[in-house]
């Protein structure tokens, strides 16, 4: 094997760009004694230094991002359109306008500083506020002095181009749920504290008439304080229970609401009739703790989106050619028959017919096929494809909402079967509710002959004490802790339900490219009788630079330092190879057949053959680099799960993968996105609980269809399709521990359920006798809730420590034997799981 590439950096190797920190090549730009890698970076520096904003460079070294490789020539004319502007602005009244942008390039404290100093670059901007975790910039500006377009252009010129996509035009709920939860907790907590204080005298003896007056007064205040708790704070539980019952299902909120309502009305009766003090303190405390559990469960990852659909990627406006003039119009006004212009890397927003230009459409977004498809005039182009190459002119044949992609997204697979009750707590609550009602009615019937009052007392007391608050609290606290532990490891889940589904999983389905292999990382090596000389390297480099095929890209990166030559008569044959004339010599690169060489008998990696003037020159061997620890992960997982591998690629790597996956695993190659989806569906039909692990681009359907879709992401800010969890690619080796740990977390939930049952039995023994005093209730209720919270949190964190998750930094390297051992123990189904 021969390696000829000289990778020494050209020129001054130590020079880095003052703005973005990239190494400066030979054509470095020097300005004010500072070096810049490109004109773009220098322009930003110039703008900032003119406005005395160089503190930007003092807060962090080289805070900028290079403008070199991005297309910043985008036009923002469409932002002058009143309709688009109206929809993008959050608020516009007179000259006061407010807008919120999503800025993907925000990454450090310098960014925050600069973006909050925008008023020094444009005086019409009155206020700018950064929300760093969400990468949002909220701006307030004077709309008479400047326009939305000028603001966006300013942001783009300093390297922070806002991402404006079609879904920005839609009304979005603005974290109002989180805010209202805070207020609900505050109201419940306020009532809880005060009611407890006012109820305290009740627990002591009441003797004098004055005390009797206090008692009435305090009881009245308690009712007043409990009203907002019932009607505002607890409203979510009551609504959810009602909806559940209307759909003839019993969710966890049904027994909870039963308890809440009985609590309130029994107390109301007791206080008004003067027969007792009521249980208002326990009632408010219960609601308060439940809401705190909900808050704990609602851990959201601000920067991640699990629900992206095509609208997050479609542009807001499109260039239309009308009467010979180019003009940008909003996508909503695009009609059938319009001629539109699509540039390099732009998305085709609606099904269209190619009129002019060479189309090379990358459908990876829709079909997962990474190789661009070449199209010539007259061909139909489907929405969602991305043009790669030159400018094309197309005519729209279907409206945006009627196009292929839009309909793909409306495919049934993309609507995950919702409404179905998931989770242990919900599953068990049906039996739980039936059990409570039986005991309550039995108590009622038993005491009926003795006294009606006692019978009702016992009946309501059972409903109160059996309220499954410990169960309702243990799930959010345990799984919420698990979610947090996972997030520290680089595994982000959509919500806590995913942990439960993960714990139940039986089958794991892997994608190959980008999941088991590292996307964009291919090892390229040249094999030939003689190494390529500099001249020949330049030829190869120039030739592959014309093509956007993944293999061409790999060779292009490999030959990155070679000087470029002029290529004439370039031709690309899809699926075969490329050819062109460089320095008067005819080059061919591609498959053995295309180049005219004998096909090799071995089958390791992709081979790209090279011939010059018909003479075989050698070949490039391109191999996918597998993720670190891949075989270890698969080997330990195959002991506990049924594994499958679905690859959209050909079976070149089968020889490498089959021994790792073992005999039981299904290995399928050349699978289309629809095949993958069907495979997952088939497994589910056989009763399997499927975890799909994909890299996001070509597995969208299968990720959606599977019980848990995990997308492996190299960069958390980049595209990831709708999924249930996102795993940082560097933490791939943690997969076995993650699965084992989610099973262990569920055992904590079961343990908690058992403990809460003990409390319930104790409480019920008082309740059925009709002797549940408010004092006992006030002690027992919070005690059981707090036990549940303590067990959940402590046990989960101890487990996390046991699995070694707490010193997470060194974790990704090794696969601890303990985890594997534990996986073994947790595999058999527990009795509770069966009953669920």
């Amino acid at each position, binding site marked *: 094997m021969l390696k000829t590439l000289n990778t020494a950096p050209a020129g001054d190797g130590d020079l880095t760009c003052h703005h973005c920190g990239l190494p400066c090549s030979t054509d470095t730009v020097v300005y004010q004694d500072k070096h810049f890698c490109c004109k773009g970076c220098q322009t930003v520096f110039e703008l900032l230094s003119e406005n005395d904003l160089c503190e930007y460079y003092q*807060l962090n070294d080289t805070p900028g991002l290079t403008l070199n490789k991005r297309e910043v020539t985008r036009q923002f004319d469409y932002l002058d359109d009143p309709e688009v502007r109206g929809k993008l602005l959050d608020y516009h009244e007179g000259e006061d306008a407010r807008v919120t942008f999503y800025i993907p390039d925000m990454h450090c*404290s310098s960014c925050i*500083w600069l973006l909050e100093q925008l008023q020094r670059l444009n005086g019409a901007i009155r206020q700018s*506020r*950064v*929300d760093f975790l969400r990468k949002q910039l909220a701006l307030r500006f004077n709309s008479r002095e400047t326009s939305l377009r000028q603001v966006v252009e300013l942001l783009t010129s300093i390297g922070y181009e806002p991402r404006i996509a079609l879904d920005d035009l839609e009304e979005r709920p603005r974290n109002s749920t*989180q805010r209202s939860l805070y207020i609900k907790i*505050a109201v419940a907590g306020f009532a809880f504290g*005060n009611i407890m204080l006012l109820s305290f005298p009740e627990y002591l003896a009441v003797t004098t008439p004055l005390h009797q007056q206090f008692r009435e*007064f305090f009881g009245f205040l308690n009712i007043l304080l409990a009203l907002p708790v019932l009607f505002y704070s607890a409203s979510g539980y009551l609504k959810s229970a009602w909806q559940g019952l209307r759909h003839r299902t019993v969710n966890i909120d049904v027994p909870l609401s039963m308890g809440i309502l009985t609590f309130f009305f029994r107390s109301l009766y007791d206080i008004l009739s003067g027969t007792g003090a009521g249980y208002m303190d326990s009632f408010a405390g219960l609601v308060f703790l439940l809401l705190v559990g909900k808050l704990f469960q609602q851990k959201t990852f601000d920067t991640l989106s699990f629900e992206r659909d095509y609208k997050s990627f479609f542009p807001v406006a499109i260039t239309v050619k009308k009467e010979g003039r180019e003009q940008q119009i909003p996508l909503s006004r695009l009609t059938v028959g319009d001629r539109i212009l699509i540039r390099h890397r732009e998305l085709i927003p609606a099904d269209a017919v190619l009129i002019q230009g060479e189309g090379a459409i990358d459908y990876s977004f829709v079909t997962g096929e990474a190789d661009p498809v070449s199209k010539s005039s007259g061909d139909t182009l489907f929405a969602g494809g991305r043009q790669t190459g030159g400018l094309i002119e197309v005519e729209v044949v279907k409206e945006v909402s009627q196009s292929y992609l839009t309909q793909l997204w409306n495919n049934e697979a993309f609507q995950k079967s919702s409404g179905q009750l998931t989770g242990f707590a919900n599953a068990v609550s049906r039996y739980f509710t039936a059990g409570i009602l039986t005991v309550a009615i039995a108590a009622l019937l038993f005491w009926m002959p003795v006294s009606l009052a006692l019978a009702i007392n016992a009946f309501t007391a059972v409903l109160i004490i059996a309220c499954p608050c410990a169960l309702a609290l243990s799930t959010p606290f345990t799984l919420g802790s698990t979610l947090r532990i996972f997030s520290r490891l680089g595994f982000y889940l959509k919500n806590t339900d995913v942990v439960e589904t993960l714990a139940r999983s039986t089958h794991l389905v892997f994608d190959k490219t980008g999941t088991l292999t590292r996307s964009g990382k291919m090892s390229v090596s040249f094999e030939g009788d003689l190494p390529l000389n500099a001249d020949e390297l330049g030829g190869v480099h120039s030739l592959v630079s014309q093509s956007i095929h993944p293999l061409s890209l790999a060779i292009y990166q490999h030959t990155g330092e070679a000087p470029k030559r002029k290529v004439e008569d370039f031709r690309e044959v899809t699926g075969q190879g490329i050819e062109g004339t460089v320095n008067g010599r005819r080059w061919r690169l591609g498959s053995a057949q295309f180049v005219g060489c004998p096909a090799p008998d071995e089958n390791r990696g992709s081979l790209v053959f090279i011939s010059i003037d018909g003479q075989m020159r050698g070949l490039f061997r391109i191999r996918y680099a597998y993720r670190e620890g891949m075989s270890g992960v698969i080997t330990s997982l195959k002991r506990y799960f049924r594994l499958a591998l679905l690859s959209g690629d050909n079976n070149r790597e089968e020889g490498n993968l089959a021994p790792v996956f073992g005999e039981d695993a299904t290995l399928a190659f050349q699978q289309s996105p629809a095949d993958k989806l069907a495979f997952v569906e088939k497994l589910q039909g056989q009763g399997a609980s499927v975890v799909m692990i994909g890299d996001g681009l070509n597995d969208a359907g299968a990720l959606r269809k599977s019980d848990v879709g995990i997308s492996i992401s190299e960069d958390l800010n980049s595209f990831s399709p709708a999924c249930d969890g996102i795993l940082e690619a560097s933490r791939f080796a943690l997969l076995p521990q993650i699965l084992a740990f989610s099973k262990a977390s569920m055992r904590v939930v079961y343990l908690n359920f058992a403990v809460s049952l003990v409390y319930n039995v104790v409480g019920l023994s008082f309740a059925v006798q009709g002797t549940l005093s408010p004092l006992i209730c006030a002690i027992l209720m919070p005690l059981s809730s707090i036990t549940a919270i303590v067990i959940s949190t402590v046990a989960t964190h101890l487990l996390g420590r046991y699995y070694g998750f707490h010193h997470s930094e060194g974790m990704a390297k090794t696969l601890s034997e303990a985890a594997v051992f534990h996986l073994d123990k947790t595999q058999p189904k527990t009795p509770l799981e069966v009953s669920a």
Partner: protein
Amino acid sequence: MSVMFILVVASLVFALAFLAAFMWAVRSGQFDDGYTPSVRMLFEDKPGKRKENNDNKTDSK
């Protein structure tokens, strides 16, 4: 002891004022972003720029 009635009501009103203050804080978005302010407070105001910065502050109110 009758003064207790007034005191209890007074204490409730007082506590309600705090509840209202908290609700105002939540509604005005003070709990939406728990991270950026921790970075922002570390930026230094340059002496020469004090006037401009003050302007910004009054604007933001």
